């Protein structure tokens, strides 16, 4: 299921990584997860030609994120629209900004990270609190196995 699970950093970084499969798969309390959504403050940012990597601090930990700028630049298929948008988004990700990130869960050198699909800069600081609450709520009613 390609649902973007809402997880706090502490939870996300403690996902079980299954390297047996290629690419590696992830499980949380036995349930597979592939995509995640996180909200946090950008505390580190590194822009390269092909990607932007940044750290997202949501209070429970820092999530490494990578936004590929040329990964989907298959101009044959989407006329470079996605790449253009990725560049726009990369420009918007600045230190100290509260951002919402969605993407695939991947692992790089054994560390869980998010390969960003889209980044949205949140203007309302309450969005972060709401994300925490959502994480708790969803964990309780949806992700956790029934007691």
């Amino acid at each position, binding site marked *: 299921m*390609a649902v973007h699970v809402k997880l*706090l950093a502490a939870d996300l970084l403690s996902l079980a990584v299954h390297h047996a499969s290629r690419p590696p798969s992830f499980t949380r309390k036995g349930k597979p997860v592939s995509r995640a959504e996180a909200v946090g403050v950008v505390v580190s940012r590194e822009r390269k030609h092909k990607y932007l990597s940044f750290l997202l601090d949501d209070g429970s930990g820092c999530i490494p994120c990578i936004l590929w700028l040329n990964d989907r630049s298959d101009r044959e298929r989407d006329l470079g629209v996605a790449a*253009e*948008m990725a560049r726009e988004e990369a420009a918007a990700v600045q230190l100290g900004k509260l951002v919402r990130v969605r993407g695939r869960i991947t692992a790089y050198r054994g560390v869980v990270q998010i390969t960003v699909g889209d980044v949205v800069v949140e203007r309302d*600081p309450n*969005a972060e609190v709401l994300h925490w609450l959502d994480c*708790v709520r969803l964990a309780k009613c949806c992700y956790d196995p029934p007691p």
Partner: protein
Amino acid sequence: MEGVRTLSISDLLHLSRPLSGAASLGSAKRPRPDGHDENPIEPPFASSVQNPDPGIFSPLGHPVLLIGTIDLFPEDSDRSLGCLNHCLSFFDGSLRICCYVLDFELKMIGRKIHVLAWNFLPFKHASGGVLEVIQWGLAEVETASDCDPSLSIPLGCSLQETDLKARGRAFGILRAVSPIFRVPCVKGNEDSQKNSSGILMDRGNSIGFIAEMLSCGCDGCGGSRFLEHGRHPHDDNNRHSFTNSVFIYFIKPAYLWRPVLFRLIGKVIVVSRLKRKLVFVGGKESYPTFVSTALTMVSLSQLPTVTPVKTDEGVYNGVVTGIYMNGMVVELDEKVWLLITDSLLAPQHSLRVGAIVSVMNYHFVHVNYSWLKTFLLGTCLRTYISIKSFSMADIRYQFKYEFNSLLEKFIESLPFSAKFWVLLLVSCFEKKFAGIFSHKDILGSENKEGLVQTYAARCLPPSAFQVQLGLFMNFCKHGQCNFRSDLNLSCLKLVIPISNLTRWCEEMWVSVPSERHDDDEIVRRNQYLDHFLPSGTSYEHMIRRIISSDDLGFVLMGVFKISPCSGRLQLTDATGSIDVVVPDLPVDVDFQTIYEVKDYKLVMEGSPHQVDHLQCHFDGSLSCRAIFQHFSHKEKSQLAVYVHFYLRGTTWSSFPHQIPSYMDKNHFMFCKDDVFHLFLVTHKFPVHQSLQDDLSLSNSSGLFAEALILPCNLISIETYEHGELTDVFLNNQHKLSDCIGELKDSIEGWSKQSELIQASNIVQHSDSVNVSREFERSCHLRCSLTFRSNNCKWSQLPVYLYNANGIIMKDILHNQSDSRVLLEFGSNNFSKYQMIHVGSYYLLKCSKKNLHSKSKGCEHMICGKAIVISETNLWSLSFLFGEDKYQRTSSGDDCSHASVKNFEDGPNKFCRHEQTFLQFIDQTRQFSDVYLHISTEAMRHLEKIEPSQQGLNNLLLSLDETKSVSSCIQNMMFEVAMPAGIINRLKNELPQGTQISLNGNVENLFIYDCRPRCCVSSSCVANCNQWSTCKVCIYVNDDYNMVRIRGSLSRYAYPIGLGPGANVTFHRVLLMHTSSRWHELMLTPMSFIVVNSVKELANQQTDRSPIQESRWNIQRVEILDTISLVSISQMLQFMNSKPIRLRCRVVTIVNLVLENQTHESVELRCGRYFEMPAASIPLAGFLLDDGSSLCYCWADNGRAETLLRLHETTQKSFLTSSKILKMSRNEDSQRTIGYHLHKMLKKHHRIVIRNHGATSDLSCEDLTFSIDSHRVFSNADEKLLRSIILNACHASTLNVVGNSVDSNAFFRGNLFCGNKEFLEYHQELPHLWVREVGHVDSMKEDTATSRKLAFWVLKRQLTCGIFLAWKPPATNIEVCSLL
């Protein structure tokens, strides 16, 4: 008196106009010294003010003097009884005229006086006039004898006989004087015609009047008080106590003293030389009474201390402000009503509007009718009405003297409050039925009761009728006569003239509290609403008020009429008409009968500002003055007023012209040879031309209805058994004869159903039964026909339901075109056209003549020819299946016990604010003229042929399904998703589409382009007759969705009540094969609108539910908040129930249909507030993710725009694509995405985008684009669209409200043809139909979620005892959470 001219009576009469004059004038001109003013006549009149108003007295410019003698009228004068009661005579030596003296003194009688100030009023219809003496003086010097004036019969005027018995004397205060009356004398012989005083009476009549004195009961007067030779009362003036009532009968010739005695009321007088009598009344009571003799003398007492006494009831002094009903009703001070039922009581000449009168001995009555509370001054024989000041206006009324008619006697017999009501009733009836009935019909005559009396007698409670006392008793028993204060007449209602009713409605409308003006502002500020109004439309907030008759104090009465200019049914009287809605009106309604409507609902529609300008003219249309006066209400109100009632709740009295309005048994009994066709009305075509137009030019009335002729006819038993008709039918069954061979085969099958033949009980064991006839009989069914007759009884008649063609019901459905006929209504049968309802069954009589005349069968059945409904009888019919228990064995049951339908259910249950018109098919059944009863037994056999009950009841439904708004939108969805597209490219082409019938609630109605241009608002249109067609735009909703219907509407097709708050069925509107921003339907010339119900609209703002708001695309967080948040993973639990809310993000699109924003015939006002959207989105499918699961959601228009973030995206500039566009940095490259999108859609009309990405990677890379044009779809176009879509997928969290829908429905509808792989991949996902999209207010969501979690944590704490405190670094907020 220098310069004062003397006028004679002949001078006054010569001028014959109201004049006033005085002997001394402050500003009088000096007479000219040249002596030219010697002429006694010319100069004064020449210089008198030429008053243009003949109703006002002209003052003479010169001092004038009248000299004459004031006296009583002689016995031989030809004066009327009215004059003899009140008038003195003024005699100037040549002529004698009536005279009324303001400051009357007894000494002036018989003396020559100078009239110093006066008015003269000539009589209108007779010679002579009345002189009103304001100031006077004796012509001669007073002598000693003048100090003791008296009244006596002049010598020579009566017999010089001295009656020694006439020794009685009465001394006391004159309390009351009756009018002069005649008493019939029953004794026949000559001797007895002489009364005791020897005066010969009139032939059989005694004429006179009675006076009551309060005589003294003091010791001094004591025993000798009635004796002529007793102590003179003047001797002792200190001890008198006037307490004892004494009656004196002033008989001829002393009756002529009445004007004098009348003026002496309240004074102490002495009447001497009387004769004592004992009067027995009714053989039981006796009254000691004095009778006047020829020697009787009246003189004033010289007692100086006695002042005029106060009577028991007090005195009312007031200004006459109106005189109505031939002087029977006098309005005083605009608030009190003086009821003068005996016109002899008042001085008629001087009782004019403007005079100040004094009333004594009256009965004060507080009137409390249901609509009116006022005060009455009732009069009786003792009442004293005198003039205190003369009026200077000649506004007088013809007083009636004779009481002959039954009505007047009837009025006399009633207590005051009832009397007043009847007088109001007379006034109302005279106004209402002027020209309809003769005056005699309304008021009756000496021998015959009129309408008023018949009606009043029925309305008045029995207690209102009282025993009539004789005249003498009436006079003596003051305080009891005609006076019943305990009588409760609050049940009496006003039979309101319709003009007064219309006016009253306006008054009510204006008096509505002004709170609504504020609401109006709110609506006006609604930018969205403003935007969608067509240009040139002024929007008005409509209010509808429904008032129940229980809250009104009046009943309606009138005859039905179809208005020639609006085509609507009206209740009409001579004063005006009012539109009515009568759900149970029979087709053959009687337009002659007068209906009295007691139980009704009054509906008013309009804008709150509409009649404001009239406010200053209101004077109370229900006031007595407005009812008595001639009240004309000519100005046409813009307020739409109509009345809703049931005919069965009305009554009609035994008025002339009454004709039974229901089906008569005779219709059947005398038409033995006739058959009755059965048909179902499937559609009515609206009227487009004026009925006033010359119809002869067009050969057609233009009144058409479409019907489905059932293959069954009704024949009476006798007809069938006669057999002849069967043969006729058989011969006429051309179909039958053509395929007789085929039938032979089928007959074998039929004949096996012997049960049917037996059960239907119609087999005629004839030897010559041929094959065809056998077939015929097998299709017969014995039933009974129940119908109401005019006397409200139910009758029953056995009939056969005769299958004419051997076609069974299901064949009709398969082959409708054969059975469909056109009904044409003759131009004089407009009423029948109006009365028939779509979806009702009707019986049409077809005479035998028609059958014989055409060899091909009944002429009604000829295909392709319209059945002309002219004089043919039509009855509405309902089927009753198998209700054996209701079958009556005998006819003549009272309809109150009629069990044909339980009338208590349904129609009578008015909701408080909802008025039901009851034009629904199932409900109109309750009001059928006839009922066809098919017994269970017969049914059982019939159902072997076909499922008849279901078939008959659902026939219409299966033919013409009425859709709800939501299902209509679903239909539109299916159509717009078709790959080929259905846009109407050429605007010149006729609109194309499918006809549907739609039912919904009217949200709003806008009128624009009214021709001729005279109306701008719906309420104005509803009541205005100046327009012929107008373009309307109607917004129709069900609870959740809304469609727009627009098109032209003829005035004759505009139904009563169409407007906001109405539930309406639109028959045969066109589902346009083009779509724009809104779902849209079109009215065609075929479309017929039926208003099913209306509801009260007091405050439109509060009336809207949150979901209804969403239809205006207003994103209101507070509205979204009211709906509970649900996770997608929980959605399946909420399938097809209440709306749910998701907080989610768009993952990708599934489907997107973009269309050019069309403006076709509706020019939208590109408003100051609102940017036009670049595209119209009839459908968009999205994949949503809320962290728990994924779901599909489907949205259109505004909702789709929000999900696509089109408002934001279109504002962005499309600079980045400049390279691809291969454009230099010109103006275009600076434009926004919205601009380019609009331009692109203009080129391609319509673009359908589908996502085929059936992989787990939810990218937007597998998009396909299909366009509706042959133009090149460039890379720039594609990139633009991709960037729009990608932008949508990169949005933040949104609040989405909608209903969970069954996914199977989407697949069935072939909605996603060509895109199935995507859906099939995620087939298990739920679907949501989006109704509202809004942004997330994180703060509010925080609160709500944390509350929910806190509760959960608390619960968990209690159970597990685990608690973690955790402080996030980014904020200082402490969140208790459980990880």
